[in-house]
């Protein structure tokens, strides 16, 4: 199949140029996303260096096992996503749909576990605000830790939800056979986005769950 047989938008000369533009556009967007999360990483770094004991203590209130399992789940979803992109490159429709659905399921599982954790934190009065209660003298700085916990994981979960919506759209399109070995840019781009969200979690996991375990 030659390039000229693929439809491309009117502003482009050919499909190759369109693909280049889309690929670059996604990377520019991801650079933006790095800075978006970067603001929170900065705040986190400053407070952790100011209140190391409180952060260690508060971190121990998180469930390290759920955190580890969730990390594995999300890495698994990245793996299936990478395989989905591969299937798309090869023009294999059925594996593509299968891997996309698998990614969707793993993503949903991640969110499910995450919301279980949130629920536990609500029960334990660890949500910042007027209901926050924390035994011991480190309560005030611990509230800062939980502010970051909810802001960072919340922003991450929001990205996951958007990712799930994108995946759903891809599955529908892939099922209808819209993608081929020559045209699979949307699968590729959603893949990039999904891996990025995975990377954010790869950093959130040690920063939130593993701060003070060794001091217990």
């Amino acid at each position, binding site marked *: 199949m030659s390039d000229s047989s693929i439809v491309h938008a009117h502003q482009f000369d050919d499909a190759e140029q369109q693909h280049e533009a889309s690929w*670059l556009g996604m990377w*520019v967007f991801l650079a933006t996303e790095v800075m978006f999360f970067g603001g929170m990483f900065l705040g986190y770094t400053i*407070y952790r260096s100011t209140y190391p004991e409180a952060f260690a203590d508060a971190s121990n209130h998180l469930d390290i096992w759920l955190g580890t399992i969730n990390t594995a789940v999300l890495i698994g979803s990245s793996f299936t996503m990478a395989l989905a992109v591969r299937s798309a490159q090869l023009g294999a429709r059925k594996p593509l749909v299968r891997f996309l659905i698998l990614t969707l399921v793993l993503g949903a599982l991640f969110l499910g576990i995450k919301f279980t954790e949130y629920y536990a934190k609500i029960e334990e009065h660890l949500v910042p605000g007027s209901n926050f209660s924390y035994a011991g003298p480190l309560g005030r700085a611990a509230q800062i830790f939980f502010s970051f916990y909810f802001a960072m994981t919340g922003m991450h979960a929001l990205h996951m939800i958007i990712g799930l919506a994108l995946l759903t759209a891809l599955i529908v399109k892939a099922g209808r056979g819209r993608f081929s070995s020559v045209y699979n840019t949307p699968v590729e781009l959603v893949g990039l986005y999904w891996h990025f969200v995975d990377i954010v979690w790869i950093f959130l996991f040690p920063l939130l769950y593993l701060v003070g375990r060794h001091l217990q």
Partner: protein
Amino acid sequence: MNGPVEERRQHYLNVNYGLKSWLLTIDHKRIAWLYLLGVTFFFFVGGLFATLIRLELLTPQGDLVQAETYNKLFTMHGVTMIFFFLIPSIPAVLGNFLIPLMIGARDLAFPRLNLASWYIYILGGLFTLAAAAAGGVDTGWTFYTPYSSIYSNTHVALTVIGIFITGFSSILTGLNFIVTIHTMRAPGMTWFRLPLFVWAHYATSIIFILGTPVIAITLALVALERLFGLGIFNPELGGDPLLFQHLFWFYSHPAVYIMILPGMGVISELITCFARKRVFGYDFIAFSSLAIAVLGFLVWGHHMFVSGQSVYASMIFSLLSMLVAIPSAVKVFNWTATLYKGSISFDAPMLYALGFIGLFTIGGLTGLFLATLGVDIHVHDTYFVIAHFHYIMVGSAVMAYLGGIHFWWPKMTGRKYPEPLARLAAVIIFLGFNLTFFPQFVLGYLGMPRRYHVYPPEFQVLNVMSTAGSSILAVGYVLPLAYLIWSLRYGVVAGMNPWKAKGLEWETTSPPPTDNFEVMPTVVHEAYAYGAAESQAVYPAGKPANV
């Protein structure tokens, strides 16, 4: 050229009519018009707030409005002017219209995303207007915590959500420009043949995509703190009051370059055209734009010399701030040198350009006062700062914006504006501007703090001068609005290249066709080939405009 056949020619304005054809357009030229409407609206809203501020400051007592109202006025003035006028003004109107034309492309890389940017911008604007209508916000456009996060009882959350939303419009515009400039240049349009306007917008886009997300998350955290009691900036919990300032200025200082860099790009086009000269030191101007964009990210701490920031950090920031002055100086000298042995005409856009150089020089030099540690201690947060940044943002950026609108008006509309009136307006704006803001330098050095509703009587004379100047300035701004609208119908038909300018945008018809060029060009010359061959590009015959 202007025969009856030419009149019937189809172009982007008459290709179809009706509201829907505009609101659902994906043509970058029409989207530029949508932005033009938006930014003009917010400019006059912001101008209205400014007028009320100046009237209040006519007397030392607080006799026109209450303190609460005054505080809301300057906050809303800053918010609308910065986030809804200045930041989108040149990039989203002129950049949107011109970048594809200048690089020889049919449109931006992502036309639908471009339209989405406009809707996001409008949505953010509606939130902010809703906040204003609901009673306003009184934190100052800087939203310093803990005042904004805990103490203010005005509509902070609604306003910051509006700015948060609008931020995504900037990000998407920047993304679109970067991708377009990388991937959509016409054959032969190498990086060093790009007009400096395009270089400037590339540099601006870098700031858009790497700075804007930081202010977005910062303001989102402030909103979360107000709405849900999150405690990231709360000093009661041990929060650091400087963290917000770092995050805020990490974007908001480079944001000044978002406002001025595109203006510098416009000026490079105007000076060369009206001096009929190749730009002096093309490479230096191009690279100085990139240098400003990168160095601009390293200097934000000069807003925080007296904030309790570490003395040592302040020194680093001061030194880096001195460095950012250099590329600006390089540009000014190169523009001046471009005039040397030129053939200079004084059409309205050139008057704006020359005014720009003068006002930018003053604005830039007074910036050095603020970057110099020992002096900044005294003038920080006084009217000196107000005067300085108005010289940059209004004196320079708005002058460039108006100059650019006049210069490309024939291309955008196919008609010329009335030249004598336009020259008059340019002169009025220049004089009114200086009368408004020059006295504020003196006020600042005498010690008048900014954001003061009432002030000691010894400052009154200078304040009266400033208010008088602002009324002249207001006339100067209303005048172009009137005659530009008039010219849409009654202006002289302009033709393809009324200024005999170089650049691909002048090699297509006015107004251009929807796909920009009847035949896609291949570029064979450097930019600004004044005094060289007639055309900058060759058009292989037989190739249709839209494959």
